[in-house]
């Protein structure tokens, strides 16, 4: 069929069954926007900043498991999107991001709103394209979705010059992708898996170390099964929260810099670390040469480059995680394991001796409390996104996550300003859940304009601002490691958040007591409107436990070390 390049974009999105697109128009992408106006395949959400369009697409992708889509214009539109691309890239989130470009005749002349978009996006995308010929467009669209969602997922960027979207060409959407150079490994090596299983059977203190790859591969069920059948304890990374479910008796908590004592001790004492979709990030391992130093390592990852990037793997296994854990389950019938109940009991003892906790107060709300409280009231009815800082760590620690994709956070890049737009994507993709964003008084101002998107598109995102009048996480480091020199982290002067959200047309609350918080939350949930609950919290609370930078996981500062 003959049609313009712009129409081809729309038709391709339809072929990919895209139901939601986030974006922001501009000169170079206007042909595409004109077609968006005419179509009724998908809904377009108008964000108020391109960075937010990408984060919203991420929130949508992270919570639903589908590919997120965003469309932006050339030049500043694209450069605004870069932080979003980098955020998605670091966390391996499948996205297709389309940008307009100046006409091919102008490329290279420093034309108005021209920028080398593919040059800029190269290091923060899984792959990218500049469309030179209209004939290539359908193929590139097809490849982009395929590359985004297969193998180790990631963002793919397509830059389309304006004259290409205006030209008319023949549209036939390819049925199959033909990429001889791109064949991600799905099936693991059987002999290697067998060796790994034998290693487990010889082990006395095995530990499942589960990372964000488990969420991406949708294998929560299989991992829970494997843990249950073998009685092997599990620790989750920040990005894997929700895999086991908070009340699973084999879950020993989150590990890492702000992980639980039991989880970090488990990594310290294990004799066989079974890494499933985790990548040994420095925020997780602490001092690398002491991480799991008594253990052999089974390392399962879909990305061969992740294996042995940081840690020697005695049993490397490349394959899709779901397929591999299914294989591990399958092989259980041939293998006998030790009884791990003493090991599990030891870790449980650690958990009881040093549980995650905070010292509550009668005079001021402690920041952990509203998080726990939302967990009590909404539990698995909510999907939780966060910004970056102390509130993010407290959410990871204290919210009772019970299913994968319930916790949406920027792990790899740690992007402040992520939470609100991501919650927009969550709300759009999960209308049956409550979309809650926990944010700090610093982070929320980085994409506050997205309140307008919530109001215009009728998305009942509830933002809970834990206001400590500080850039709290940085303040904590200054307190602990810079002799309390609070350089540029004091946020005593802040807007009136209640008035701010009301001026956008949302619901505003300012609470200083637990009763007020409960009432505000109830009201916001019932009214199903965009809302912001500002909670005035203890200013100087620290995130604990903490493994100071450069220390080993068993060298933790615990809560008792501070309050005594």
């Amino acid at each position, binding site marked *: 069929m003959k049609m313009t390049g712009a129409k081809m974009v729309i038709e391709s999105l339809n072929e990919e069954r895209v139901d939601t697109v986030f974006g922001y128009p501009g000169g170079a992408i206007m042909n595409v926007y004109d077609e968006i106006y005419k179509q009724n395949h998908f809904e377009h959400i108008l964000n108020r900043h391109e960075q937010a369009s990408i984060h919203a697409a991420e929130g949508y992708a992270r919570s639903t498991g589908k590919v997120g889509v965003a469309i932006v214009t050339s030049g500043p539109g694209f450069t605004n999107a870069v932080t979003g691309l980098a955020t998605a890239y670091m966390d391996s989130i499948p996205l297709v991001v389309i940008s307009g470009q100046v006409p091919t005749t102008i490329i290279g002349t420093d034309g108005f709103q021209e920028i080398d978009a593919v040059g800029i996006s*190269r*290091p923060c995308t899984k792959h990218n394209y500049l469309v030179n010929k209209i004939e290539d467009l359908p193929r590139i669209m097809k490849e982009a979705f395929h590359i985004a969602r297969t193998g180790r997922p990631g963002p793919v960027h397509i830059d389309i010059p304006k004259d290409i979207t205006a030209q008319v060409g023949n549209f036939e959407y390819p049925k199959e992708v033909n990429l001889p150079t791109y064949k991600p490994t799905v099936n693991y090596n059987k002999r290697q898996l067998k060796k790994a299983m034998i290693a487990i059977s010889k082990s006395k203190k095995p530990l499942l170390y589960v990372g964000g790859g488990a969420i991406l591969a949708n294998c929560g069920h299989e991992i829970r099964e494997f843990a249950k059948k073998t009685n092997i304890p599990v620790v989750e990374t920040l990005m894997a929260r929700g895999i086991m479910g908070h009340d699973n008796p084999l879950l020993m908590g989150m590990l890492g810099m702000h992980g639980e004592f039991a989880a970090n001790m488990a990594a310290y004492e294990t004799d066989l670390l079974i890494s499933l979709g985790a990548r040994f990030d420095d925020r997780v391992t602490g001092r690398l040469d002491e991480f799991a130093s008594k253990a052999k*390592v089974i390392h399962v990852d879909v990305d061969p480059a992740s294996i042995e990037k940081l840690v020697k793997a005695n049993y490397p296994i490349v394959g899709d995680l779901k397929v591999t854990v299914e294989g591990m389950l399958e092989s259980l019938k041939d293998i006998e394991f030790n009884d791990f109940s003493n090991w599990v009991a030891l870790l449980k003892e650690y958990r009881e001796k040093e549980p995650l906790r905070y010292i509550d107060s009668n005079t001021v709300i402690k920041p952990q409390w509203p998080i726990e409280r939302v967990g009590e009231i909404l539990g698995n009815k909510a999907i939780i996104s966060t910004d970056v800082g102390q509130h993010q760590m407290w959410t990871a620690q204290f919210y009772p996550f019970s299913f994968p994709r319930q916790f949406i956070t920027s792990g790899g890049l740690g992007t402040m300003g992520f939470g609100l737009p991501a919650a927009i994507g969550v709300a759009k993709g999960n209308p049956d859940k409550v979309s809650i964003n926990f944010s700090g008084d610093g982070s929320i101002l980085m994409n506050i304009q997205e309140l307008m998107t919530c109001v215009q598109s009728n998305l009942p995102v509830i933002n809970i601002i834990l206001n400590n009048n500080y850039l709290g996480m940085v303040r904590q480091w200054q307190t602990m490691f810079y002799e309390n020199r609070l350089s540029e982290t004091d946020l005593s002067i802040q807007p009136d958040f209640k008035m701010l959200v009301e001026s956008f047309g949302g619901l505003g609350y300012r609470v200083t007591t637990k009763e007020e918080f409960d009432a505000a939350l109830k009201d916001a949930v019932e009214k199903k409107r965009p809302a912001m609950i500002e909670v005035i919290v203890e200013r100087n609370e620290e995130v604990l436990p903490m493994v100071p930078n450069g220390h080993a996981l068993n060298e933790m500062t615990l809560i008792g070390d501070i309050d005594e």
Partner: protein
Amino acid sequence: MNNFNHYYDSETIRQVISVIVINEHNALSRIVGLFSARGYNIDSLTVAPITGSEYSRMTIVTTGDKRVIDQIVKQLNKLIPVLKVNEHKNVIEKETVLIKIPINQPISDVEVIARAYNGHIQNVTDDAIVISATDEPHRIANFTNIMNNRFNPLEIVKSGVVAMER
């Protein structure tokens, strides 16, 4: 047991890698970008289309410890347009150098030395002679040194290494 000694003791090695990559306008920048973004070395790089195909071959000479070389190979393999990455073990390596020497230098000496390195005089003008030599990279390095020390060359151009498995 320590999972990391494996990497910490390893010494720096020189590795010749060839990369077969689809001819597309971004391919070279993707590969060079990977090296610069991850802090890997490129000692030399040559690229040319493979006759009768839609692919090009790049020959990259790099240095690093075993962990770095492993990562380079894996990360290159990860790039979508890369078809194949070869970590060469047993290769014939060749490099070409062009050297321009002022005409007032002792020409017969130049020629004798050049011949020892499979070199030839390529061109002579009123001002200068140009010699070329093609040989193994370490011999080309020697040759270049000698010429540089003795004959005040006006210009030296090296091609970078090309390699082929024996």
